[in-house]
């Protein structure tokens, strides 16, 4: 039986509730009855819930029920760069612990790299019950082929129930490949995770349409259930010194480590922190700062509060600052604890990239600027006065 969705014409009253509810614009009215455009419908079922007359019937092909009981444990892929474990890994270990507890399984850290024996203690102290470690020269820096091959092998041998990975450049590139290889479901950029304890399902909630809607996604019939998770939405695992994990060192034949691509060089931008994703505080300059040299005051404020420098699309397009600073739809999506928007008008494309920040401060001379609609605190005024005043005040309070 194929999956299908049908309107029961006798029951449809033409109320249009389903039309309004459909996130994909797939329903319209013809002769006062709902009609579903199958080219647009994703069978998400939003209309079924919306219909008060039970006039929409959704049959989802269940597929053959597979025996999934061989899969257990929650894995966290711990990303390292130059031997440093990325902070997102600790956030995932914190969240993974909660999920593992609900399922009554172990929390396992997976780390790939070279000369990384010393990381064992660090991962143990963050609550991992078990650590899978693969140490090989070819894994020193991230390369798609050997990382994909090794992680695929590990999963096939040890069968985790859930794999979490940071929604980083590396994470998104890697697990997308692994998911295809092992025919697993993968949900990108989750901001909320939970467990349906009865069905042992991972409930993965993520923004879509630039955060205008949220979707909860499950993987009913495939294992492992894989998810990438955004920075800064989960709480880092606490450190418990002396906590010991079981360590499993894996080796593979040389053929597993083969790579088709060659990493010729790693170039670090000498500019101050551009790692917007990991920043707790971001100070962003928009066109309202007036001139490229005025990024100096943005940078100074960022430095004082130990934050990163963001930029609006307009300033990047004008060549005032490199693209790596751009926040928004065609730049980076960020959710820091504090976002200070200086002279940013707040076009929807910009808001999409930063509106999930915990606290937003907006400074703009136009009281009608859209940025104020999302700001926790708004200041109408000249950025050239206010930003330096803020810098001075932060310096005073932080004793810098």
């Amino acid at each position, binding site marked *: 039986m194929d999956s299908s969705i049908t309107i029961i014409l006798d029951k449809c009253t033409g109320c249009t509730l389903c039309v309004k509810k459909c996130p994909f614009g797939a329903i319209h009215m013809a002769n006062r009855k709902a009609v579903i455009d199958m080219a647009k419908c*994703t069978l998400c079922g939003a209309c079924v819930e919306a219909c008060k007359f039970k006039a929409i019937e959704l049959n989802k092909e269940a597929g053959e029920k597979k025996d999934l009981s061989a899969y257990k444990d929650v894995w966290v892929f711990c990303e390292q760069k130059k031997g440093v474990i990325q902070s997102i890994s600790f956030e995932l270990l914190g969240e993974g612990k909660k999920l593992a507890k609900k399922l009554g399984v172990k929390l396992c850290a997976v780390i790939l790299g070279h000369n990384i024996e010393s990381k064992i203690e660090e991962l143990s102290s963050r609550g991992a019950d078990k650590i899978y470690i693969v140490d090989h020269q070819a894994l020193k820096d991230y390369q798609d082929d050997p990382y994909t091959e090794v992680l695929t092998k590990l999963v096939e041998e040890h069968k985790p129930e859930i794999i979490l990975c940071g929604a980083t*450049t590396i994470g998104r590139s890697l697990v997308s490949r692994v998911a295809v290889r092992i025919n697993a479901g993968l949900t990108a950029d989750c901001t909320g995770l939970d467990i349906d304890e009865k069905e042992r399902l991972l409930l993965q909630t993520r923004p879509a349409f630039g955060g205008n809607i949220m979707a909860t996604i499950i993987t009913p019939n495939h294992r492992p259930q894989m998810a990438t998770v955004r920075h800064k939405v989960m709480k880092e695992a606490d450190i418990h010194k002396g906590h010991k994990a079981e360590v499993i060192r894996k080796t593979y034949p040389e053929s597993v480590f083969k790579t088709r691509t060659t990493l010729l060089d790693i170039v670090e931008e000498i500019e101050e922190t551009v790692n917007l994703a990991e920043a707790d505080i971001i100070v962003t300059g928009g066109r309202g700062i007036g001139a490229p040299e005025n990024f100096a005051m943005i940078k100074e404020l960022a430095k004082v509060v130990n934050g990163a420098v963001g930029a609006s699309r307009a300033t990047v397009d004008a060549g005032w600052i490199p693209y790596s600073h751009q926040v928004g739809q065609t730049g980076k999506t960020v959710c820091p604890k504090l976002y200070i928007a200086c002279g940013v008008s707040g076009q929807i494309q910009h808001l999409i990239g930063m509106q999930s920040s915990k606290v937003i401060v907006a400074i703009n001379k136009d009281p009608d600027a859209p940025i104020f609609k999302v700001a926790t605190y708004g200041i109408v005024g000249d950025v050239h006065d206010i930003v330096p005043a803020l810098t001075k005040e932060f310096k005073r309070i932080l004793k810098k």
Partner: protein
Amino acid sequence: MNIIVCIKQVPNTTDVKIDPVTNTLIRDGVESVINPFDTYAIEEGVRLKERFGGKVTVVTMGPPQAENALKEAISLGCDEGILVSDRKFAGSDTWATSYTLSMAIKKIGAFDIVICGKQASDGDTAQVGPGISTHLNIPQVTYVKKVEDIKDNKAKVERMMEEGYDIVETPIPCLFTVVKEINSPRLPSLKGMMRAKSAKITKWTADDIKADPKSIGLDGSPTRVVKIFTPPPRKGGEMLKGETADIAREIVELLKDVVI
């Protein structure tokens, strides 16, 4: 050089508005556009053709109206458009979508480089590009910000990373996903628009690309959307007024806990 560019038609998010009463997306009159990230993929495909010679084929999976996106790509310099469209694709997640596109690419035949935008603006997953390269079993470089050179069947590119960039060499055939920094897309030329108008778009169904029915659409998709909801819209907060120095003191006091 044979270049294949994969694109997606998406709702123009600048037009997406929330109905304040029903709290859902207002879709009436929402224009469909080429996914913004894919415009850089199209431009890069055309630029590589201009640098190294060859042909650019643009392919999309979507409803019949996605033909417009292909025509637009042709007006921007692509040579041919292929629409992969079938009701059987309904409900595809990224696994099934990347499988479907990889089967279409196989049918196109010999190619050197597949280019995708880094992600689509509606789904934001960044999973389809890497999925295609895996189904095709070719190397990939994601987040490419510059194609330095292609010679002797090897491409040298720069991959954008959080702290800077990597310089990576890959044999071809291969797949790139590209970021905005890679180029500034051109506007369609008059000649291009004329060509697009008369261009014949090739249309393929699931059968045409010999897709395994178990690997497409909802049945080929491991993931299921079980709930869709609108997050409460963020409310504007407090507006601070007064002398600059007073405001600065007040706001720093309010933010003290966050910053320290």
